[in-house]
């Protein structure tokens, strides 16, 4: 008798998704899928809008990573204007993007995944949340909250608003940085670096407890993709696309991000509203790749900042296939963000008043690419002669990982789930592998510990064989 296990909704991720696990007659996992179940419609309803509104409109996609969309959207608009924005504006946008990545990574690690890491995959679900952490390890909880606050404060200092700021505009930013604000940002950076280093020390100590998961999460071998700087260092704002194979050998380098459509194809699968992008030269599904922190650190020569590079040395001793190490990569990137912000704030032109280029639209088509917390993000707009949007296409970071997430779910389910003796902890591991990718499926973080998890084992005749409720 075949059975299907449904995990719906998947909790402690951003957005709405469900997982189905199909069991065979013997109660073993035969297949499993990750389904994204929401439609947003942004690409459609922006049609007809003036393109200058696009950064603000598009940032509304997400309340966690509005800045990422602001940046990619504004870059696409820069391309429509055909301007090269002032250096100070580019660096200010860079800092904003780094602060965004730091706060989003902190949310992913401390709020969403640390409950599994600190309390254990089999811990009582009622405890397995940020409040459970606050009880067991108050300092860790405080650190998570503080890191996120720092990222948000930097965003606010730069742009005047923590969420959905209007500061990033086509052609640059609409206000220069003042000396006071620069100093206010500089003042928090060293505390942030200290917190991340403390967290890494703790995390290194517990890695041993998760050897089984690390191994199970590494059964998947994929390509890795991301932007790198001209010298092969970590780059979040500009740069060229690099693709490495499963063994980290570079198979494509210096690809123009605006030509992404020429080397990345998009397949559609019936079980998900999210498309499945793949690397065209290897075809579908062999061209499966991963993006985001793990992929970025697997393709770069170095981070380009001292503390992060030191940690990168340790990171390279870990199994680079394992999605479990997205967590460690995320911590290294937070470190990098704070160090890089420090470097950028010391560039001589950072306080320049010249932060915006003005022009009429000079191109009908514009593409903007940057690194978002979860990976490479692309906005692609086409406008008419009056500057109104004719077509918009977005390739979202989480989308790149879709195939890898789907296959990871299958691998982890096969490793842990046994239909005959279904336990909540087994299913939590299936969710946990999804959490390593930190997918942002829409714009909402679910209320911690409040989301119901309802798993049913359903027989072909529709009768419920077994049931677990969270």
């Amino acid at each position, binding site marked *: 008798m075949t059975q299907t296990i449904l995990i719906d909704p998947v909790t402690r991720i951003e957005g709405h998704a469900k997982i189905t696990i199909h069991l065979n007659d013997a109660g073993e996992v035969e297949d499993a899928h990750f389904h994204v179940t929401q439609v947003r419609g942004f690409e459609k309803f922006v049609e007809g*809008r003036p393109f*200058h*509104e696009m950064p*603000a409109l598009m940032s509304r996609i997400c309340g966690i990573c509005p800045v990422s969309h602001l940046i990619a959207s504004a870059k696409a608009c820069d391309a429509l204007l055909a301007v090269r924005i002032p250096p100070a504006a580019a660096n200010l946008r860079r800092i904003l993007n780094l602060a965004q990545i730091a706060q989003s990574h902190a949310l992913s690690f401390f709020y969403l995944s640390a409950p599994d890491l600190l309390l254990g995959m089999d811990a009582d679900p009622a405890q397995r949340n940020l409040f459970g952490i606050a009880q067991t390890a108050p300092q860790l909880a405080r650190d998570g909250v503080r890191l996120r606050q720092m990222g948000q404060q930097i965003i606010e200092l730069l742009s005047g608003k923590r969420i959905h700021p*209007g500061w990033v505009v086509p052609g640059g930013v*609409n206000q220069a940085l003042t000396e006071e604000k620069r100093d206010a940002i500089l003042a928090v950076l060293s505390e942030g670096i200290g917190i991340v280093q403390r967290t890494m020390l703790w995390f290194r100590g517990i890695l041993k407890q998760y050897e089984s998961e690390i191994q199970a999460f590494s059964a998947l071998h994929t390509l890795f993709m991301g932007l790198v700087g001209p010298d092969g260092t970590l780059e979040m704002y500009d740069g060229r696309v690099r693709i490495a194979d499963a063994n980290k050998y570079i198979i494509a380098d210096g690809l123009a991000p605006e030509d992404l459509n020429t080397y990345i194809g998009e397949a559609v699968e019936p079980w998900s509203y999210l498309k499945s992008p793949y690397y065209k030269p290897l075809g579908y599904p062999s061209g499966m790749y991963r993006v985001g922190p793990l992929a970025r650190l697997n393709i770069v020569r170095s981070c380009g900042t001292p503390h992060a590079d030191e940690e990168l040395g340790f990171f390279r001793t870990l199994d680079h296939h394992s999605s479990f190490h997205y967590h460690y990569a995320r911590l290294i990137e937070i470190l990098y963000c704070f160090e890089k912000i420090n470097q950028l704030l010391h560039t001589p032109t950072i306080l320049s008043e010249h932060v915006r280029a003005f022009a009429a639209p000079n191109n009908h088509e514009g593409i903007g690419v940057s690194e978002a917390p979860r990976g490479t993000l692309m906005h692609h707009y086409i406008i008419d002669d009056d500057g109104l949007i004719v077509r918009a296409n977005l390739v979202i970071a989480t989308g790149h990982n879709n195939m890898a997430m789907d296959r990871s779910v299958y691998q982890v389910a096969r490793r842990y789930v046994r239909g005959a003796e279904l336990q909540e902890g087994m299913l939590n591991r299936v969710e946990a592998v999804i959490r390593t990718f930190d997918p942002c499926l829409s714009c909402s973080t679910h209320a911690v510990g409040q989301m119901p998890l309802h798993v049913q084992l359903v027989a072909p005749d529709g009768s419920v064989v077994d049931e677990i409720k969270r």
Partner: protein
Amino acid sequence: MSRVATLKINGQDVSGREDETILEVARENGIPIPTLCQIEGLSNVGACRMCLVEVAGISKLLPACTTRVAEGMDVRTESERLTHYRRMAVEMLFAEGNHICSVCVSNGHCELQGMAVALGIDHIHLPYLAPRRGVDASHERFTFDANRCILCTRCVRVCDEIEGAHTWDVMGRGVGSVVITDLNERWGDSPTCTSCGKCVQTCPTGALFIKGSAVGEMTKRNTFLTYIAQMRGNLK
């Protein structure tokens, strides 16, 4: 020379010339009455119904911007009934168009938004009509987004009365009314528009804005209007 009338506004004894409106006399005496379509320097049309007031002895509400003062009048500018109707009028404006403040060029500087805040409106109780209205971005310097138009006709009046071009006018009836340029041509093709921008600066919402404005960047500067009107003797 007009005669002077004495009257009461909110119980306060005030006086004004008989050719003055209740709104003018109230403002001379520091008594606020909310308005949207009215702007100093242009004629009054009583379109928005924000300035409705109660006058003792008259059962219907009267617009303060178009009602002249009279001897012995007893006017109330604030009451539960007035607030109810003002809120309803603003809610209707929101329901009738597509006003998405958070992504609007006038966010934070919009008179409609300001009015909603002042009246404590946090929900629209009417179903949104979500009309399909277009954006005319054919003009070289300005854009007209009909989604945000509340038909106050300030643009029509300023273009006619101050600039003298009469490019703008109103077409259609009732809920189907729209402001148009010339004979409903693209603004960029208008032979009468002088590109002076007075319509943009007097528009209370983000319906008319300077091309290239991003969210919240469009602040309107319309103090020129009082000055021009005074110079021409249009203001009393």
